[in-house]
């Protein structure tokens, strides 16, 4: 009996032992990987500490965006012994109500971010309250010292945990360069989640700094001039571009209304747009010089030929197009000077549609200028295959196409610099000598013959001296430019309520240093470019000659009888 019992007990023990051994083998051999993963997950954690984001400066050294070291305060709510007491003590340090902090501590996760982007002394003060439960983690804050200046160009950032991420403007477009490489640490914790080891896995690298081509003082002057114009004309918005016609460098890129990049949510999202680059409008009469260029290049207009513009309009494909120029028989120069709609339509109808399209295409219309910003407007330049019988007239009047102010500035720069279409440049360089160009800076393609460009320059000078652009004149300087008052297409048709007032030109003639384009969107009181956009151009041009230290030019001699000498006869 006892022997049988002994045998039974032995068998049971052996079976149990085998079971234990089998289970141990299962855990240690078969499911080894799974348990190892679980243990790693529980014990090891990779901590990513973002590096300081790069700075953004203007060409003249003004700081548009920078980052400052801060700390984030994390609280282990399980390790916090007296949360209510802690909340009361932390309230004055954080400037928050104690009840709110207590509620967060009560309902929040175990690792609660109590505060982020706070100064170290604030973090230290909080850690003093509960050294065992409060952890300070390196953090940074994005700062915009010049507030609204060039806000739409610079953009703004957002947050993903402790990471600062570009959300708009250059902050978004150059995220890879600005963000740098984060530092990574491996934190090993024990069973009670106490950190027992910290090892650096990856050394961080601060973000690269960007230097823009913008001139901060010119940018401020442009924004002030646009703000005045928007206020006086009760416009929906306005944009301005100042471009160096020799290099393609963008000296100012203004857009109003603007926003504070430190608090973008404080402004409606439509104000975040950089209208000068991201919006495209009907260019109106500012494109007439390009039609003239096509006609002169094609030989469609004879020297001294006059066009009958006495009927205050012209009929095209059953539509009557009004002409606001004084009735008269104008030469091509006169048509541009007085912005005669009838005259330019007559010229456009002499041209092959394909040729007209090719001229506009050559000046960069319908293509993105590629300055490195997200959402750059390409504008609309429909191919001739989609044109109606009215289209040549519509295109020549700047109504059946749309362009961004920057595109128009690049096109006018080609007239200003003797015929070269340039690649505009906004970002000059990044630290570390990185190539940040979005294309080859400088000259890109010759689109105009030098003599033809000079002829167009003279035409545009006449516009300011004798034509619709008189308000753009700057005392002591020869200014060239063209007005443009366009109807905006709304709900598929043009009406008399939505307009864009343009002025595009350059200063000083005959050797321009700056191309300036102003676009005023939907001015309410007076929508004519001559009285809305041209004065704004004048204000900006005055600042341009002052800030770029451009010496005044000798005025051209005016002969008795209204005749004019060429620049070769200039004093």
């Amino acid at each position, binding site marked *: 009996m006892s022997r049988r019992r002994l045998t039974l007990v032995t068998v049971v023990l052996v079976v149990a032992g085998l079971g234990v051994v089998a289970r141990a083998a299962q855990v240690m051999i078969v499911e080894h990987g799974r348990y190892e993963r679980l243990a790693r997950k529980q014990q090891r954690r990779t901590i990513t500490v973002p590096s300081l984001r790069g700075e953004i400066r203007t060409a003249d050294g003004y700081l548009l965006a920078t980052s400052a070291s801060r700390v984030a305060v994390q609280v282990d709510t399980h390790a916090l012994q007296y949360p209510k007491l802690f909340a009361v003590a932390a309230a004055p340090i954080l400037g928050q109500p104690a009840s709110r902090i207590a509620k967060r501590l009560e309902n929040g996760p175990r690792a609660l971010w109590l505060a982020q982007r706070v100064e170290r002394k604030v973090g230290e003060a909080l850690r003093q309250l509960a050294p065992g439960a409060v952890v300070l983690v390196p953090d940074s804050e994005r700062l915009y010292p010049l507030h609204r200046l060039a806000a739409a160009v610079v953009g703004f950032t957002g947050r993903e945990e402790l990471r600062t991420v570009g959300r708009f403007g250059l902050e978004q477009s150059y995220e890879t360069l600005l963000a740098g490489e984060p530092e990574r640490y491996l934190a090993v914790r024990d069973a009670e989640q106490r950190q027992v080891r910290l090892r650096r896995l990856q050394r961080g690298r601060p973000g690269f700094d960007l230097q823009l081509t913008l001139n901060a003082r010119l940018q401020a002057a442009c924004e002030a001039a646009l703000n005045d114009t928007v206020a006086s004309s009760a416009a929906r918005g306005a944009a301005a571009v100042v471009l160096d016609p020799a290099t393609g460098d963008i000296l100012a890129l203004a857009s109003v209304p603007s926003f504070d990049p430190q608090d973008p949510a404080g402004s409606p999202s439509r104000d975040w747009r950089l209208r000068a680059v991201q919006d495209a409008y009907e260019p109106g009469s500012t494109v007439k010089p390009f039609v003239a260029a096509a006609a002169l290049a094609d030989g469609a207009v004879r020297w001294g030929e006059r066009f009958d513009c006495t009927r205050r309009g012209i009929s095209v494909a059953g539509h009557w197009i009004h002409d606001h120029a004084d009735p008269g028989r104008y030469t091509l120069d006169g048509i541009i000077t007085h912005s005669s709609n009838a005259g330019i339509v007559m010229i456009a109808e002499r041209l092959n549609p394909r040729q007209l399209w090719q001229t506009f295409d050559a000046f960069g219309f319908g293509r993105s200028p590629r300055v490195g910003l997200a959402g750059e407007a390409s504008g609309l330049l429909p191919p001739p295959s989609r044109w109606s019988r009215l289209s040549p007239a519509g295109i020549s009047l700047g109504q059946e196409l749309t362009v961004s102010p920057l595109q128009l500035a690049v096109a006018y720069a080609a007239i200003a610099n003797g015929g070269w279409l340039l690649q505009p440049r906004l970002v000059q360089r990044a630290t570390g000598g990185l190539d940040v160009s979005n294309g080859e800076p400088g000259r890109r393609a010759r689109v105009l013959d030098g003599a033809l460009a000079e002829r167009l320059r003279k035409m545009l000078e006449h516009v300011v001296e004798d034509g619709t652009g008189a308000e753009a004149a700057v005392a002591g300087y020869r200014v060239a430019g063209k007005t443009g008052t366009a109807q905006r297409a709304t709900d598929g048709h043009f009406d008399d309520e939505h307009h864009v007032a343009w002025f595009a030109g350059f200063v000083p003639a005959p050797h321009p240093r700056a191309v300036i384009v102003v676009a005023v969107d939907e001015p309410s009181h007076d929508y004519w470019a001559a009285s809305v956009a041209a004065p704004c151009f004048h204000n900006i041009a005055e600042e341009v000659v002052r800030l770029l230290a451009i*010496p005044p030019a000798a005025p051209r001699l005016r002969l008795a009888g209204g005749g004019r000498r060429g620049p070769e006869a200039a004093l």
Partner: protein
Amino acid sequence: MIELPISRPSNRYLVRQRDRRWLHVLGGTLLLASALVAVLFAVGWPRLKATSIHYRLIRLRAEVDHLQQVERGLALQVERERDPARLARRAKALGLVPPSPGDAEVLASRPPEPPE
């Protein structure tokens, strides 16, 4: 009178002996101790200095961090102060006006005098 020898305590049989070995041992011990102290000093002093320097470095690093923060804060303040838009507003409030382009005077560069 015959002087009888009187037996008195005397040390004339005790010969002064110098334990020369003891001196050697003492000398050796002192030498060894000195060497040990010297070695300890040679090793310990730099370590002590290193530790002291290390602590000083920690303090200085903290001070550098602090000063860098201050410098960054001041640089930021300078940037804020020289905001062109802000300066323009202040200038306007003070009644300053920019010179108009017509006010500018161009000073023509004077050609060099011909050598006499």
